């Protein structure tokens, strides 16, 4: 089976400033992958390479069986949908609905299908009530969600998101998690940059960590996020649930909130039992 995304020995520099060095990994359909690392580690540059906005100096970025070097970004949009770090720059229509429907319409799908995808994407991120508003009348967090809805409406094989939950409250973060889990269940591959390791723990299975342009770590998040000594040199700290699990010695060291709650209740019941 061809992976949804494969990087082979990718290196990239901005002029004389090296950003990525010999990065290789692949992501299968339906996989949920968090891309972690310090500010300036090269995460956003990686997103630009996958979207075809930059070309690697060395190595190859494969989106399915397409070499991104042979594709222009609008071709890649058939397979990859991207929310960039500064999502404001992606929004240009005078209503959220028009913005979200632009992508599928540009792909040339029928008008009825455009409407279906638009309605479904708006609903997925709880933006239906804001559909007729101007995107710039929304707070920054909701503008990012509007860009996310636009990406979802493309119904791509691969979703690449740069910090999708900045500025969102707990309820909307949970909504984004749910929307991404649903897409993953429908075989969409996810690669998502985040500094919020709570969001990472709740939403993704696998973590890639970039450290000064190299891939320093590629493993299951559940084992990585509880290990403070390994996280520290990568500029990361365990999320609160992982730290709580460790501090209380919870069996299995869960890192997701529902699992921690279940373990807490179970251990507490055990203590009370005669």
């Amino acid at each position, binding site marked *: 089976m061809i992976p949804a995304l494969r990087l082979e020995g990718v290196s990239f520099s901005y002029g004389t400033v090296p950003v990525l060095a010999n990065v290789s990994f692949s992501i299968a359909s339906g996989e949920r992958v968090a891309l972690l690392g310090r500010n300036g580690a090269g995460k956003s540059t990686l997103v630009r390479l996958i979207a075809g906005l930059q070309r690697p100096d060395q190595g190859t970025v494969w989106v399915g069986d397409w070499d991104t070097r042979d594709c222009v970004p609008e071709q890649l949009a058939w397979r990859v949908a991207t929310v960039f*770090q*500064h999502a404001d720059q992606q929004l240009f229509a005078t209503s959220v609905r028009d913005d979200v429907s632009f992508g599928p319409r540009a792909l040339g799908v029928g008008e009825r299908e455009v409407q279906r995808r638009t309605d479904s994407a708006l609903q997925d991120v709880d933006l239906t009530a804001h559909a007729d508003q101007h995107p710039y009348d929304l707070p920054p967090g*909701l503008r990012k969600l509007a860009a996310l809805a636009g990406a979802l409406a493309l119904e791509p094989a691969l979703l690449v998101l740069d910090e999708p939950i*900045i500025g969102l409250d707990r309820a909307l973060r949970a909504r984004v998690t749910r929307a991404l889990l649903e897409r993953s269940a429908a075989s969409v591959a996810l690669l998502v940059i985040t*500094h919020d390791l709570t969001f990472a723990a709740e939403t993704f299975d696998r973590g890639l960590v970039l450290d000064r342009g190299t891939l320093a770590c590629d493993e299951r998040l559940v084992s990585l996020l509880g290990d403070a000594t390994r996280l520290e040199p990568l500029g990361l700290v365990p999320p609160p649930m992982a*730290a709580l699990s460790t*501090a209380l010695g919870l069996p299995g060291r869960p890192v997701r909130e529902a699992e921690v*709650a279940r373990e807490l209740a179970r251990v507490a019941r055990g203590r009370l039992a005669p």
Partner: protein
Amino acid sequence: MKSLTLDHASFWYPATESPALRDVSLEVAPGEVVALVGALGAGASTLLLVAGDLAPRMTGGRLEGTAARRDRSGIVLPTPWTQVSGMAFTVWDEVAFGPANLGWPAHEISRQVDRALERLELVPLASRDPATLSGGELQRVIIAAILAMDPGLVLFDEPAAELDAEGACTLWRLIRVLAKEGKGILLATSALDALPEVADRVVWLEQGAVRAVGTPDLLAEAAACEAGLGTSVATVWRDSELPEPAPLTIIDAVRRWR
């Protein structure tokens, strides 16, 4: 005099009928860190704009009640790329842009810029073009640029959103230092787990109005947790239906668990 005094402030954006802020009275003392928490759209960003004299002066709209500041204020917006001047080709010059526009003598500009760069751990980036920085690096530049103007009241809107873990830790520590130096700090953030260490007082906003005010212990209360405004530890403790009171932090939880 307080660093900031809002007295029965209500604010309407242009062409809107319902107010974004409703009858908010709030004081920030010199040396105090006050955190604004609430659901998205609760009014925290609007409150900061009013506190910083940007609303209605820049936004238009209508203010009822008053907002009074003792000193000059500085605001850090949640989207750093909208706050960068675009007129400087190095980080040093970007940070100097504000002080230069205040008409300060060159030696004072240099002193403030160097100090701000040091505080945000930006010295190694001082000669970089701001346009080549990552989002988190740019966010630190914007914070440095605001602090270089030495405002008496600093208004932060989601200042850690773009920052990595180390950058966020540096910022939270710096905010406590700024308070110790006598600055008033008003901080809107969704980083609730940081607040027990950072904030003296928490103001919970709901639909533009103040719903509750208290110490950070407020974030362990049942109502806050139900509204999605509890710390992670308090929230999971309550989800597990463990006995009251819910702990606020991991240290509290360890104490309770024994």
